[in-house]
């Protein structure tokens, strides 16, 4: 019953959930950031179990590596200290917890209803770099290119916001012209 696959799935899943809980519980930003890295890495493990080796590698390189390094970098640069614990908000009590319960019940209901359908075998779905490349550049070429243009616009926006143009004679920064 307990195949290696299932054991590994539960192992990575446990790391993932523990990391996510730790992310919320920790009061120091850097510990939270490191928990998030653990979550990302465990997710990469789950992708690998599904046979999506390329997605797993990209998950580690982009999320656990590049993006989280910037998070850690920012925390280091701001020298952010221990956060104060808030008393908890009424919004969370009124809407958050019932909403979460409702969502879990819905999800469980859907999963139970479809439990008859066969599980996808490991490696049955396309995960090799070649297949993904062909899908991206043939079938989904237009969405792919539109997404890249969207990201490009976001980058340019970030550059415009970050570079404060100096006034004449190096005075205080003036407003970006409309």
């Amino acid at each position: 019953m307990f195949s290696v696959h299932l054991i590994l799935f539960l192992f990575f899943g446990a790391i993932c959930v523990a990391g996510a809980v730790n992310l919320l519980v920790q009061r120091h930003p850097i510990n939270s950031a490191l928990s998030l890295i653990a979550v990302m890495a465990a997710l990469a493990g789950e992708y690998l179990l599904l046979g999506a080796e390329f997605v797993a590698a990209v998950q580690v390189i982009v999320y656990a590596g590049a993006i989280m390094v910037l998070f850690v970098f920012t925390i280091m640069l701001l020298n952010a200290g221990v956060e104060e614990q808030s008393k908890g908000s009424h919004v969370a009590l009124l809407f958050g917890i019932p909403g979460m319960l409702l969502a879990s019940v819905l999800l469980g209901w859907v999963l139970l209803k479809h439990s008859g359908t066969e599980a996808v075998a490991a490696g049955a779905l396309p995960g090799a770099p070649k297949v993904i490349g062909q899908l991206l550049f043939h079938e989904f070429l237009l969405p792919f290119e539109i997404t890249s243009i969207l990201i490009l616009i976001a980058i340019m926006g970030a550059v415009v916001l970050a570079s404060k143009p100096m006034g004449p004679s190096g005075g205080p920064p003036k407003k970006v012209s409309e």
Partner: protein
Amino acid sequence: MPIWLYIVASVIKSVVVLFLLLTAVAYTVWLERKVFGHMQNRWGPTRVGPFGLLQPAADGLKFLFKEDLTPPHVYKPLFLAAPLIAVIFALTSISVIPFGNPVVIGKYVIPLQITTDVNTGLLLILGVTSIGVYGVALAGWSSNNKYSLLGGLRASAQMVSYEISLGLSLVGVLIMAGSFSLTDIVHAQQGHFWGFIPRWNIFTGQIIGFFCYLIAAYAETNRIPFDLPEAETELVAGYHTEYSAMKFAMFFMAEYANMITVGCLATLLFLGGWNGPIFGPPILRAILPVFWFAAKVFAFLFLYIWVRGTLPRFRYDQLMAFGWKFLLPVALVNLVATAIGVAW
């Protein structure tokens, strides 16, 4: 292959490779001190053993017996974890590197690398190196010391910046080989031009890619001329200022293990891997590929030391300007040119 045999083979390979890697790390340090010494008209280590060959052992013993200080003002959990992160990820990345063609024993084919020949071996190395940054960054932050913090900040900024050029410089090779598998990439480099020039990627149009890789790799491993994270003249020792004894030795081991991995990768991707002249009796034929591989990695490590003995350190703004305004465009142009060349 039955699963138990697979596990036994993996364990044996891991132990052998780890032993070889750590020995290589120790003797790279010896080689560096020796060669660097001669370049500066000194002798380098001479006292311990013939030619100072036992110096690494003496160093190791010294690291073991030194007092293991933990300053009171550090953030302890991360201060202890940082050297572990650095050394673990430095040693992990060697696991996907093949050292030669698979060996056939009886009816089993055993690849000469710890993992099997995964199709994303190269991506795995990139992923592991991108996580290795945390070792340095967290060491700098958790030391709670301004020099360490500056070193850690510099290291993370520098490694994130140069990782892009590093990745892009490899894509040219990937396009030419048409595979992520390191074994396939080596096989794509077999044969000769006009009977004597080997068809290594460095000779088949990837020379610019090779130099981009070389420069970016030096920056990724924090070596001169890019060793700003530990610039002694400004930052005491940078991110490992507060570390002593074995914890310091772990950073040291991680740095040299990374150098060796980078050298192995350069050999596989640009210098033809284990391809080389094969001759003589069957035993020699079996050993020669691994020998060529080791010789190329050695040449790469020698170049590291040579560069250290030759070049001064960059200034920090020069480092960033060079990485973003020169290296990245060159790597991009190389990528586009390779793509056009292959498509044509």
